[in-house]
């Protein structure tokens, strides 16, 4: 008889989605159904002056707005042939550290942990695990604080603009962030120990493809190059070639387009990044990884939760380096002047959930004529479906309810940002 497993509303994820797994003759097929309303972002920016674009695309996602702003600012600068000085790059990366703390902190504590502890929400755990709940808030809210200092507001701060920043943070503000980052070390170490010690469901999904931005120095927030890992083969390509490698197409059952590499799922995000960069992390991070029960590279999607905790350690150590450099070499001006010109630009960043791609075309006065945005969650849909199929196969002897719960946890481990995924694409050639 045909089995059907449906989770009608995925909870503790951002946005509206469902998953359905159907069995017929022993074969499973999974569908990640995204029914979040369309938000038409690429359409909204067409006709707009470049100045207004970051503030519009920021609203694709409240959790990773800094990533969207960064990608769009970089794409705009690229189109106009401008390059911001290294000190401003550091400030921009520091803002991205904030996004990682907020997003990964929110995911680990608020979205993922309750499952492992048998609760339905973190707030329900306040009485039994007060310290854990406090730590969750602390890690996440440090991210919010960093973003606020750099962007001007907790969320959707406007200060990150094409060309740099409208205004620089003061040295005192940076020093204060430094103190807070020093102070949070123990909490991050404990977070890593905790997620490493949890019992993660067993599931092995060998990855055909893994993708991340590429920086020869190691794990980073953005770059103009990408790396595609196919078993033992590594291919480097540039941001201009993104759409040659990553192919998008709409499907009936989802408001988000699906992306594949050579017709196959591609893994992006924390697990792909840690798998790719594990040997190039800072000494501190490498040492912690070597003491862990979880081993990388990993093929278990539930280890995405551990990979996030690893990334927080690395992001903190980078942030401290950035601030030290900035304090000794404070930027002389907040931004560079941009001169619009006709052309197309590209911006690729590692958002907390994975590789994020923005591209825009402009006319000679800086008005947008075309755009395309590919978000990590849209890219991850096919990986989620593949994993859900594997999960249903591996656990076919379990009662349906249990498989359903595991499937829900599986999707959650991807931390899908459904609002992002339905921002809507386009770019008519």
């Amino acid at each position, binding site marked *: 008889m045909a089995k059907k497993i449906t989770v009608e509303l995925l909870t503790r994820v951002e946005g509206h989605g469902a998953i359905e797994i159907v069995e017929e003759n022993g074969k499973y097929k999974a569908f990640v159904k995204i029914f979040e309303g*369309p938000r*038409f972002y690429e359409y909204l920016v067409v006709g707009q002056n470049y100045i207004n674009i970051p503030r519009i695309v920021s609203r694709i996602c409240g959790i990773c*707005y800094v990533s969207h702003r960064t990608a769009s600012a970089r794409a705009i600068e690229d189109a106009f042939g401008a390059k911001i000085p290294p000190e401003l790059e550091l400030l921009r990366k520091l803002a991205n550290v904030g996004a990682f703390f907020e997003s990964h902190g929110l995911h680990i504590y608020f979205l993922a942990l309750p499952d492992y502890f048998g609760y339905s929400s973190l707030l329900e755990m306040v009485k039994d695990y007060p310290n854990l709940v406090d730590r969750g808030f602390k890690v996440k809210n440090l991210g919010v604080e960093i973003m606020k200092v750099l962007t001007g507001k907790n969320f959707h701060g406007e200060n990150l603009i094409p060309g740099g920043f409208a205004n620089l943070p003061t040295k005192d503000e940076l020093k204060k962030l430094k103190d807070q980052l020093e102070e949070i070390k123990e909490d991050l170490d404990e977070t890593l120990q905790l997620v490493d010690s949890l019992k993660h469901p067993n599931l092995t999904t060998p990855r055909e493809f893994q993708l991340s931005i590429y920086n020869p120095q190691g794990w980073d927030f953005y770059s103009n190059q990408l790396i595609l890992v196919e078993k033992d083969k590594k291919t480097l390509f540039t941001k201009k070639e993104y759409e040659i490698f990553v192919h998008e197409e709409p499907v009936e059952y989802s408001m988000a387009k699906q992306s594949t590499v050579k017709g196959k799922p591609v893994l992006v995000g924390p697990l792909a990044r840690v798998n790719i960069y594990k040997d190039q992390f800072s000494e501190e991070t490498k040492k912690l990884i070597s003491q862990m029960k979880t081993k990388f590279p990993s093929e278990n999607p539930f280890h995405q939760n551990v990979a996030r905790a690893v990334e927080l350690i690395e992001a903190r150590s980078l942030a401290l380096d950035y601030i030290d450099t900035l304090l000794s070499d404070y930027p002389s001006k907040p931004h560079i002047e941009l001169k619009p010109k006709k052309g197309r630009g590209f911006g690729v960043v590692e958002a907390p959930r994975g590789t994020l791609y923005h591209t825009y075309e402009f006319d000679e006065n800086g008005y947008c004529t075309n755009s395309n945005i590919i978000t990590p969650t849209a890219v991850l849909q096919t990986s989620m479906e593949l994993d859900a199929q594997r999960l249903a196969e591996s656990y076919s002897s379990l009662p349906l309810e249990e498989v359903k719960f595991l499937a829900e946890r599986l999707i959650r481990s991807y931390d899908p940002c459904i609002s992002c995924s339905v921002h809507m694409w386009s770019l008519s050639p």
Partner: protein
Amino acid sequence: MGKTTNNGSKKPTVGIMYFTSCGGCQCEILTHANLLKKLVDLVEIKYFPMGSSNNTLETDFDIIFIEGSVSTDHDLELLHIARERSKILVAVGTCACFGGVQSSKNAESSLNEMLRYVYGDKIPTVVKALKPKPLKDYVKVDYELPGCPVSGKDFVLAVQYLLNGLDPFLPKMAVCYECKQAQTPCRLQASYMCVGSLSNAGCGAPCTFKGLGCYGCRGDHEDPNYKELVKLFRQKGYSDRDIYNFVKVFRGNYVREKLLPYLDLDIPLPEDEKPKEVN
């Protein structure tokens, strides 16, 4: 209306719902650790899918907070359920209050044009899309907490007031007032585009403080003077196209009636905004 009944020892029931949105307002709410920790003692949160996996709508609610604009038939169905079951309905954030950024082209494009641009001929069928609109276009909304995102301070205040059976009092005045208080030099005078004079204060004017113009993410205050502002922008050398582009970002659902009368732009009424013909 406006009172949460505390029948005996029963705690008030609260829901936090979201429609088509970015999740930013819920993120803002989630930064308020102390409020949330207290709230779990004071109320029963029965519905909060972003934060909890245990949710029900099969109950009466005292207050439901809603983030996001109504953009699908699914959103609309939930909205009607929320209105039916909750004594108090609060729109949280600019998406819920005015439609948000996703409606910034509502005055110039029909839903069909937007869908076609995005999906071509392959429009997904999983849900029926609607033109992004605020909650109040469909049901009665008791309170509105604007902002993109909502101001955490407003939210905390509203919760406290509502739980005590009081009307939340949110003064409506121009963002300019907050610039004056903070002694921030006026951006408009420095020739930046700024719609702070139209916009509802309460955010503390963080954008003008950083040296940018306010783009009015909190919607209009009670008596906005569009005509005067258009005159000023023109004096500063901005084209009507630029004025429209700037203002529509957060005002897509009402630029046509409020702004376009003062601009020399010919923007045809989209097909789905035309009054339906009655035979």
